[in-house]
């Protein structure tokens, strides 16, 4: 736990110096939502129906920026290698980084919701439940995303490689997150939302436990 606390302290310091990057990712996500709404046109019924999908698409695209940049500060002077040699616990380093990415993506998702409501004329009957679904969905993106970001950080084409590796893996998470968000916003007459949330929790549990185990091997030579 001391190792995890140390790693979280480091992430807190790094995130507090990277607020400009957070803002840039938020602007990127907002721009994506705006462009999608322009593409559909002023058909409010259609906009409402596809709003959940576009919210998650904007989040997915933004997540590649967040995740790819999350190891930049660690790589500039091989800081990550320095921590491994201290020796810091690789699992602690992974979970702290994944938690930081998760927090960023969750905040981003929540920040995009008002814009989605405005642009897509979406209904928001249960905002807290929606925040919960966003947290579960972004957990499913950040756990494998952090692992793949660590794997691809030294590749020249990491900005291309990361989505290529990540997107196929998170398809089940995205489907579950979009379905759960749709049910929350458009109504849930069959009470299916619990099943989709459970599916998200299952994927999150698998991703978070497996990726934590694999991270040590990824950062080793």
């Amino acid at each position, binding site marked *: 736990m001391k190792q995890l606390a140390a790693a979280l302290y480091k992430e807190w*310091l790094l995130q507090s110096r990277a607020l400009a990057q957070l803002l840039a990712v938020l602007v990127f996500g907002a721009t994506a939502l705006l462009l999608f709404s322009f593409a559909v046109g002023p058909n409010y019924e259609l906009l409402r129906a596809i709003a959940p999908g576009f919210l998650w698409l904007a989040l997915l695209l933004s997540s590649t920026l967040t995740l790819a940049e999350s190891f930049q500060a660690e790589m500039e002077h091989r*800081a990550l290698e320095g921590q491994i040699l201290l020796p810091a616990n690789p699992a602690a380093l992974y979970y702290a980084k994944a938690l930081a990415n998760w927090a960023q993506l969750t905040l981003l998702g929540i920040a995009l919701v008002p814009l989605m409501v405005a642009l897509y004329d979406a209904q928001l009957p249960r905002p807290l439940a929606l925040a919960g679904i966003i947290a579960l969905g972004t957990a499913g993106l950040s756990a494998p995303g952090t692992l793949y970001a660590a794997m691809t950080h030294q590749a020249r084409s990491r900005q291309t490689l990361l989505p290529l590796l990540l997107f196929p893996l998170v398809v089940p998470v995205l489907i579950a997150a979009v379905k759960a968000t749709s049910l929350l916003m458009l109504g849930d007459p069959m009470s299916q939302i619990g099943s989709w949330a459970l599916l998200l929790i299952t994927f999150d549990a698998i991703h978070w436990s497996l990726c934590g185990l694999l991270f040590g091997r990824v950062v080793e030579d």
Partner: protein
Amino acid sequence: MTTFDAIAAIAATAAIDARGLCRRYGRRWALVDVTFRVAPGTSVMLAGRNGSGKSTLLRVLAAAIRPDRGSATVLGHDLGREREEVRRSIALLSHASYLHEALTAMENLRIAARFLERKTGRDALLPLLAEVELDARADDAVSTFSAGMRKRLALARTLLQEGSVVLLDEPYGELDPPGFRLVDRLFGTFKARGATVLMATHLLDRGAALCDEGLVLEGGRLRWHGPARELPEQGGLDPATLPEGAR
């Protein structure tokens, strides 16, 4: 005691026991069959031309990268199987500073102290920064530091680790003359602690004055191993000038 036990006991007493270490990057072999032993408390100068494999050898010994062939023990810990124990025993001053640019000198040290489970208070860490003459810049971001100041901060981080085996890769690089004297002083500190020190340097005379033994690498191969004071006299870096039988 069997012969095997006797060999194991001797190996356990060596601070570093490298046997046939090989490492390659792609198709190029950076280390080829490097074998040597270093007794505890000994200081060793590692010499060789650019690209001769000095940094690779230090990184292999620090468990930063794995050897492709061969084996080694550090204070009796196997480099292949006990990497965490090896890392716990070693402090590496690498070419890379291992620092976070966006953070201050104090924050960088505090992160390392937290991972090492040492005292993290300002009172505990400021003397370390004072040791490398950076206490006045403790709260400045590393991004505002010169290369020499980064090297000093990296030295403070190495001091914090209190490794029983200290690996210094070009510690004089980027430093000014007072910085040279600082490295000499810290070298004495490491030795006074009883640490085994391996120092890669091109400053042969300086290294020979500080170290007990010398190692010369050429093209990834160990070409010479002997008393450090003899290394500058016979050229050190040119295999053609090495003593007969040492090539």
